[in-house]
């Protein structure tokens, strides 16, 4: 299993489930949740959190600015 180096926090209520971050994610970390938020959208979440590198590609394409990205150096 790859080292956990990055993490994203998605504002579930702001997310409109447009899927752009899922496509932009180079490590297949993100996916749309089966559950829906109060607006009825399938919000984005970290399906494979161990893949995340904190590259900020998802937050770059997010039209609703609902993704916060954290990154740390890989632990040895």
């Amino acid at each position: 299993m790859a080292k956990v180096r990055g993490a994203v926090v998605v504002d579930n209520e702001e997310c409109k489930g447009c899927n752009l971050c899922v496509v932009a994610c180079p490590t297949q970390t993100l996916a749309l949740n089966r559950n829906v938020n109060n607006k009825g959208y399938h919000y984005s979440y970290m399906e494979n959190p161990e893949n995340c590198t904190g590259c900020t590609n998802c937050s770059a394409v997010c039209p609703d600015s609902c993704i916060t990205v954290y990154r740390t150096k890989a632990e040895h």
Partner: protein
Amino acid sequence: MSVLTEKINAIIKPENLVYSKSPLLNDDSMHYCPGCSHGVVHRLIAEVIDEMGIQEETIGVSPVGCAVFAYNYIDIDWQEAAHGRAPAVATGIKRVMPEKYVFSYQGDGDLAAIGTAETFHAVNRGENIVMIFINNAIYGMTGGQMAPTTLVGQITSTTPHGRNVDLNGYPLKITELLAQLPGAAFVTRQSVQTPAAVRKTKKAIRKAFEIQAQKKGTAFVEVVSTCSSGWKLSPVASNKWMEENMFPQYPLGDLKDTGRADASLYKVKG
């Protein structure tokens, strides 16, 4: 708590933060459809203004169209303009307060249809303003009617069999036309469908604001955008459609980057 959750929680700490929502974007939830390019461009403008530290000196002029409520989302001073008249309003604001940063934010119905005259003459005068042009080749707000920038053969609610040149004319490449005008300082066309394109667009918007500070002339940034509701496609399919159909007609890149023309070139001899 699982090991994985513990690991994630160990990363989610303030000292590891690499990206968070711009402080200039307020808490209002944007009214745009899922995947709309407007949201990305709003965020880029907010980030550029924040990074340049010009929040108190910036005045935006919002258009009529989907972006009419832009003033609800970015925490700067705004003025709403009548349909298509944003460049004229921005001209007035800039001339009264030349030390302020003034930008107009317009869609293709506003800038390239009803506001064509204001757009051309503001750029021809070389007004020191930034104009941001969202080109999604359709009238999004009113229900997906044909716009001047609609592609030939593109299906809209008013061209159900596709845009026909004999009946509807050709797509208006207004950015190419504006690049010909001597008052234009910086004319560029960008897009926001991939992370790389988003970063390039942010640089272009920043450059446009810097050109305004240097009083070089009008800086014009077109952003080729999607309208997934108007195009009747998913946001991801819209991006693909845009790459396949919009980019050949509206190629990306800088069209002009020379500053406004020297007045002596246009002066009478005697």
